[in-house]
């Protein structure tokens, strides 16, 4: 999913759950900020592909796979907040709607999946989700 969709979903969650201060920051960090791994993968893209645009490059890392719950849950217990796993799960669920390859349990397993609702075109799912999220955000204002 695009970063805009993640921002819309996180904003809706923050508003619906009336999160403020530290809890809102945590929501954005784990709902949107986990996409930072794309930035960390940029040097590899530049080395392998160069400056041209290449579709389907593998941009994902364990930072936004379910395996990350192994450290997010203990961290949440330490912070005494349920916000990080909740917003992280929403982020991952949205990514799993898109059909590209994902490795949910790497490095413990090399299993590869394409996610959920793979029969529907990605564009349809994304447009439908953005529409729902925009309506939700406007309705909650």
């Amino acid at each position, binding site marked *: 999913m695009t970063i805009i969709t993640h921002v819309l979903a996180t904003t809706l969650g923050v508003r619906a759950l009336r999160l403020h201060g530290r809890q809102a920051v945590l929501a954005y960090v784990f709902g949107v900020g986990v996409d930072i*791994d794309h930035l*960390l*993968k940029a040097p*590899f893209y530049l*080395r*392998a592909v160069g400056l041209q645009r*290449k*579709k*389907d*490059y*593998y941009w994902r*890392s*364990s*930072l936004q796979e379910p*395996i*990350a719950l*192994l*450290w997010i849950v*203990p*961290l949440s*217990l*330490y912070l005494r907040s349920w916000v990080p796993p909740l917003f992280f799960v929403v982020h991952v669920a949205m990514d799993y709607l898109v059909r*590209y*390859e*994902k*490795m949910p349990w*790497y*490095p*413990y397993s*090399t*299993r*590869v999946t394409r996610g959920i609702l793979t029969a529907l075109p990605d564009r349809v799912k994304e447009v439908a989700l953005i529409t729902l999220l925009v309506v939700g955000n406007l309705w909650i204002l």
Partner: protein
Amino acid sequence: MKRFADWLNQPFARILHEGLGLSPNQVSGGSFVLSVLAALAVAGGRLHAGLGLMAMGQWLDGIDGAIARHYGLGSPRGERIDTLFDRASEAAIFLGFAWSGLAPIELVLLSLAAILLLTTLVERTGIDPGAKRVLLYGGLWFPYRVIFALIFLINLGGFVVSLFKADIQFQQRMDALTGDLDTIASRAARQEDAERARATRPQPGLRPWRS
């Protein structure tokens, strides 16, 4: 650093191995016994005695490796046993601190969980910040709540970095492949599986090890 420690421990390694006939695994076991005694002392409110016993246990823990390296007794199985004793020692000592009330039980359990998570990847990534029992001596100057928070955060951070290092290794594997990018992860995964199967398959001509 390890070589210098081995040189320092050599006389003791000689006494324990040549004099008393102890194997590296038996020395690891002795280190674990000292750790349990340390845990009991801490749990009973004798912190300084506990830290002293823990120091002796850690010293023995260094000697087992020195014996293994000096006498050529090192093996992957021995390393695994050493790691097992290390984790069991930490569990005993940490729980001793929780029992005595010096540290909250939830923080102790989180620290143990973080150490275990890091251990699951250390063989693959080689990342281990080493912030475990040794930080407990800091409790002589700082509250144990702070010490255990540090142990938790450092080891959990180490685990996140380990995950990312494994990702980078996999990314390099994918980048080395050519062809359709849409199936690159599954092709690289198959390649990794095949390499692992080759590495674990018994080599022809070698007889299986028997105890």
